[in-house]
């Protein structure tokens, strides 16, 4: 050990700093990084951490040395018109640039492909939605036109905007059921299959209609709810009008 120190003292050259340009510093303390910036924590096996520690050390050295150099009036920035031979030839730099560009392009291509795939899925969904909406509108329009033709409604509102089917109260019947016109089931079927009769190929047992339990009323189903007017009302609820009455109702409601 002493031999080392002796040797060092003999060997050491006393030169001004400008000749040597050496900086001995630790790393730049990075406020952002949560991990310990102390040297002891650097795991040499962890490549990224190691390289980052070297980088930070170099940064610290540069940040310390550049002001000193500037004070000593040594130029650090190369003027734009200063052309000199570089350590790596232009050919080499071209190769490097090509490689970087190809990498970037590959990444972009994959990104674009991913986006296209996502767009296609979304686009398909949107398209089907739009088509369905258009078909519905067309159907409603035709129904409204037919109603007008049949003389049920003399309003020409359907030309301007969408029209909702309004059931005219032709029958001022005491029975609540009569007031409503045809049965709810009947109304639903009219709406679905329209006035032109049963349309070919209309599915009515789809997944959505099967899963749709909104029209389930437990009290009605289990026959547990209170009747319309107690016992008597129960009977009235289930009373079905005669054939003639039913036909009249049918033609009126359309």
């Amino acid at each position: 050990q002493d031999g080392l120190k002796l040797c060092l003292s003999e060997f050491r050259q006393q030169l001004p700093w400008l000749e040597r340009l050496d900086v001995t510093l630790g790393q730049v303390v990075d406020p952002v990084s949560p991990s310990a910036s102390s040297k002891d924590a650097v795991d040499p096996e962890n490549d990224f951490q190691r390289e980052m520690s070297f980088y930070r050390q170099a940064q610290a050295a540069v940040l310390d040395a550049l002001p000193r150099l500037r004070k000593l009036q040594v130029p650090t920035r190369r003027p734009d018109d200063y052309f000199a031979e570089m350590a790596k030839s232009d050919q080499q730099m071209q190769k490097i640039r090509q490689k970087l560009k190809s990498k970037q392009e590959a990444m972009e291509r994959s990104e674009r492909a991913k986006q296209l795939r996502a767009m296609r899925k979304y686009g398909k969904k949107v398209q089907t939605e739009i088509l369905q909406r258009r078909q519905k509108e067309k159907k409603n329009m035709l129904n409204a036109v037919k109603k007008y033709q049949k003389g049920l409604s003399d309003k020409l509102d359907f030309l301007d905007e969408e029209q909702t089917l309004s059931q005219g109260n032709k029958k001022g019947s005491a029975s609540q059921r009569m007031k409503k016109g045809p049965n709810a089931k009947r109304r639903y079927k009219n709406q679905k299959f329209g006035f032109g009769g049963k349309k070919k190929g209309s599915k009515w047992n789809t997944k959505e209609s099967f899963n749709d339990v909104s029209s389930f009323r437990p009290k009605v189903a289990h026959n547990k709810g209170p009747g319309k007017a107690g016992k008597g009302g129960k009977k009235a609820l289930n009373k079905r009008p005669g054939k003639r009455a039913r036909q009249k109702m049918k033609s009126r409601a359309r």
Partner: protein
Amino acid sequence: GKWKNKERVLIFSSRGINFRTRHLMQDLRTLMPHSKADTKMDRKDQLFVINEVCEMKNCNKCIFFEAKKKQDLYMWLSNTPQGPSAKFLVQNVHTLAELKMTGNCLRGSRPLLSFDPTFDKEPHYALLKELFIQIFGTPQYHPKSQPFVDHVFTFTVTDERIWFRNYQIIEEDASLVEIGPRFVLNLIKIFQGSFGGATLYENPHYQSPNMHRRLIRLSVAAKFREKQQVKEVQKIKQKGSKVLIEGDPTEVVFETPAEEKPVEIQLVKPESKPIVKDKKKPRKIQRKKQKKLFRTEA
């Protein structure tokens, strides 16, 4: 200004180096304008011959690459007339030509040298630091040098080794890009004289590559031997589980030999047996009919 600090470094190698080492040497020569090249040295010459070669070329520092077994690369850094020298094992060499190193610098520009604080803590590291500064630092006003300072060499001590990196300074706020070659130096010994002399320091953590390879081979062999031993033990266990039962002497007591029949030699063919029809089994055709009915019923 006038070039006062007369440092000249001789960079050369022995025979038997591979392409990577050759490229590294060339890279160092381009990065250090105060360097001189020389032809390959023959292995049979002794190392102190290098001192004479340096004197002939008027150099006072030397970087000598030595390749052994076409695998291991050793580097000598020395101050030639009388100064200290150090021998390193070089690992993980990446040259300037690698496409991942995207930086560039002026050829011959003076480098900034950045050292780890560890270099000041130990005397051997302090000596090495001084050696690095004198060798790698380009003297000011050297005729081949450029006056700008645009790159920085970093020497870091990690994992008992010295890591070397070369970065280009892009912006004044110290954004850096890696340029240059990178290598790892594993210190072996420091000598008092140039390529000889008393050993000032020996690295206790150093393991020669031969030793390293030998250890790997031994560990593999040890594993194999262990497996074999386990197999042998298993074999013995299997064999050992069979208990040897002694012969029972009382076994023979009840043995009665059978009566000997006279040996009959048949000269005439025996009569053929009459074919007895099995009435219980229906005939073939009847059996088929039965099967059909069965099938139609079912």
